[in-house]
């Protein structure tokens, strides 16, 4: 079982994640890339800032990858998340999963991003022309 977890301040490297999960016995790789959108609810976003509780974020990301491998029988997962200031279009997260068959790769990749968004202590602040907002903080 091969897992690579990274929390990085520099741009994420999709090809590195794909290479990490590639192997001669895998038949399918699914990759999810979460990118910074230029608008939220119709309002222009200038840039984002991500803040993480780093040791816990890394531990939670590793748990998710381990759970995914266990649930779906996948063997290799790379899970990289960016922190700091991100411009529009940049990747905030890259998840690559390989599996002998494609259904497991899709299911595991989706499980990773869905669970990451619920449990990993990382916070996104959207910066607008006229202010800034921590996403999802208030009801």
């Amino acid at each position, binding site marked *: 079982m091969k897992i690579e977890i990274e929390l990085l301040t520099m741009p994420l490297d999709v090809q590195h994640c794909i290479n990490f999960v590639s192997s001669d016995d895998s038949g399918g790789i699914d990759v999810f890339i*979460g990118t910074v959108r230029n608008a939220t609810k119709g309002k222009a976003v200038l840039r984002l800032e*991500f*803040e*993480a*509780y780093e*040791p*816990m*974020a890394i*531990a939670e990301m590793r748990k998710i990858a381990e759970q995914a491998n266990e649930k779906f029988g996948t063997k290799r997962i790379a899970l990289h*998340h960016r922190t700091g200031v991100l411009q529009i279009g940049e990747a*905030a*997260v890259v998840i690559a999963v390989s599996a002998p068959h494609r259904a497991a790769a899709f299911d595991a990749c989706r499980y990773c*991003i869905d669970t*990451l*968004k*619920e*449990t*990993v*202590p*990382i*916070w*996104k*602040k959207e910066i607008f022309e006229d202010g800034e907002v*921590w*996403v*999802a*903080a*208030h*009801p």
Partner: protein
Amino acid sequence: MKISILSFGIAKDIVGQRFLDWELPEGAAVADLRASLTAQFPALSKLTSVRLAVNSEYAEEGVFLSENDEVALIPPVSGG
């Protein structure tokens, strides 16, 4: 006993600093810490949620705290 409080995201804005030392009576649990923090920083109760993590693990309200535990205030996460 002394607990080390770490605050993130909007919780840091409310508390005003990343690191905070907090005094609690011996035998206090997560729920007691939550109550005393909310008393001091009422804006915390306006958030969608605040989970507490003890030494980097999410903790239920009944978990007992120990001297020098590190407790993180975790408002709604929004990574990805």
